[in-house]
């Protein structure tokens, strides 16, 4: 076989694949939890040697584990709800960004940019303080407890990011798709809903999943505004044990571990899908 020299007068760089979300995965394996586990066991073992009257750090952690896991389930619940709300609003905003109406388009864009560039924690405070504690919908009073407000606060940045994901995916489609649909006398609305968006769904899935993982990790922010999720419970558990310093490392490491076990598989799946879709395209 003859190999052809690549002919050019310009110095070249190879094609660059930007890292936006995950792009790493050929060597990733679940044994990465081992270091965290080692951390928990190691730190509790060290702590153990010093204290024989009290319950060992590991046993103490075991005792609190069911409660902490319950707390984590609450985090998952918040993340699922915030994702649902954020995706719904974000989809509307994203499609708004593609509108032919200039006013709709630019105000959607502005709203997206505004919420995308704000820190998650600030948006969380924003929702906590500015939402009323109850809303009156046609005479029915719906109370808004803190955790609902926190969920809405977390949904705001999700909304902005979903909006951007949609816009990015639609713009990345070759314009030939629009033209082909136009030549078939589809209306713009039909083109968008029947031709463009279905094709984009696949492209949007990996960044959307990545966003979900980020959101899940952001749910601990709710502890700062007093929602009883896993981080808050951890703090309470530590206080209930009388602030023993030997418990700090194992307890915090345990929280890290729960999130890792939950988020890491999502990250892996994201990488896999990304690979698969990039091969197809």
């Amino acid at each position: 076989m003859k190999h052809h020299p690549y002919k050019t007068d310009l110095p070249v760089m190879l094609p660059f694949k930007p890292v936006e979300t995950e792009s790493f995965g050929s060597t990733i394996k679940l044994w990465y939890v081992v270091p965290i586990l080692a951390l928990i066991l190691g730190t509790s073992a060290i702590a153990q040697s010093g204290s024989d009257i009290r319950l060992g750090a590991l046993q103490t952690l075991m005792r609190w584990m069911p409660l902490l896991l319950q707390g984590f389930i609450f985090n998952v619940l918040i993340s699922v709800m915030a994702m649902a709300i954020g995706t719904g609003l974000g989809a509307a905003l994203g499609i708004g960004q593609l509108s032919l109406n200039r006013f709709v388009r630019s105000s959607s864009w502005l709203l997206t940019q505004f919420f995308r560039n704000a820190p998650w924690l600030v948006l969380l405070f924003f929702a906590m303080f500015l939402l009323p504690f109850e809303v009156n919908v046609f005479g029915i009073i719906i109370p808004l407890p803190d955790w609902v407000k926190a969920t809405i606060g977390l949904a705001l940045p999700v909304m902005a990011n979903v909006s951007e994901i949609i816009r990015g995916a639609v713009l990345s489609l070759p314009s030939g798709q629009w033209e082909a649909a136009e030549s078939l006398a589809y209306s713009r609305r039909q083109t968008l809903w029947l031709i463009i968006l279905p094709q984009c769904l696949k492209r949007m899935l990996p960044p959307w999943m990545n966003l979900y993982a980020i959101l899940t990790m952001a749910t601990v922010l709710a502890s700062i505004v007093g929602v009883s999720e896993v981080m808050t419970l951890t703090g309470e558990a530590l206080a209930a044990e009388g602030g023993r310093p030997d418990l700090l490392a194992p307890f915090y490491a345990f929280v890290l571990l729960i999130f890792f076990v939950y988020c890491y598989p999502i990250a892996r799946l994201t990488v896999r899908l990304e690979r698969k879709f990039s091969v197809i395209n």
Partner: protein
Amino acid sequence: MEAFYEWFRILYEDTGINLPFMYDEYDRGRILNGLWATIKLSAICVLFSVIIGMVGAWLQGSPWKTTRRIVNVYIQLFRNTPPLVQLYFFYFAVGILIPRVENDWGGTSPLIDSFGWAVISLSFFAGAFNVEIFRSGIEAVPKSTIEAAKALGFSRLQIYKDITLPLALRVVIPSLNNNLVNLVKTTTLAYAIAVPELLYESNQIWSDNVNVTEMMLFLLVAYFVLVGILVWAMNFWDRSLKIPGFGQ
């Protein structure tokens, strides 16, 4: 200047829009302190996290499997756990292991204060992403260019420093930009360990003045501007790195 400040007092009296840090000297001091702390925290973390990214990407190219593994574990651990918990872990769990030193008032204080832990924690967090960003840039540098440097007798480190990294840098700036913007936003987490940064000081002000709405909007605008400055600086850097006749 006084007239300018006064204008905000009048604004408050006339409309109820209360921005006390504009007319009240004490609150102005707080907000400036907070702003300065946020800028300092952001700048130091940007610097450290970029260094971590460069060093980590270099270690990932190490001929030793163990080294590469350790870097990969680091990346995955910091990417897939909440940065807030990482911060707590550093501040509380690691913090108690750090020796205390005598301070100016005759007492003792921790060797690393909350600001220091925020720097460490956030730098490692953003650094994990930066390692991957730099690695992807390095992959875009043609092997033949590196071979040319090898043939000239450059050592592995020299090749990385003089050839691979400068070339990689030029393609990764947009990705790096994204991550650093996130980092600046993430500095608000330092609030949780009472670092007196912008969010923390704003919180103090709205507790005293009951002007949450105004402070919230101010915060959103402030971070918008900070992020804008960073993006502008990165674009400037990107343009200054352009090589004549190079790139697409």
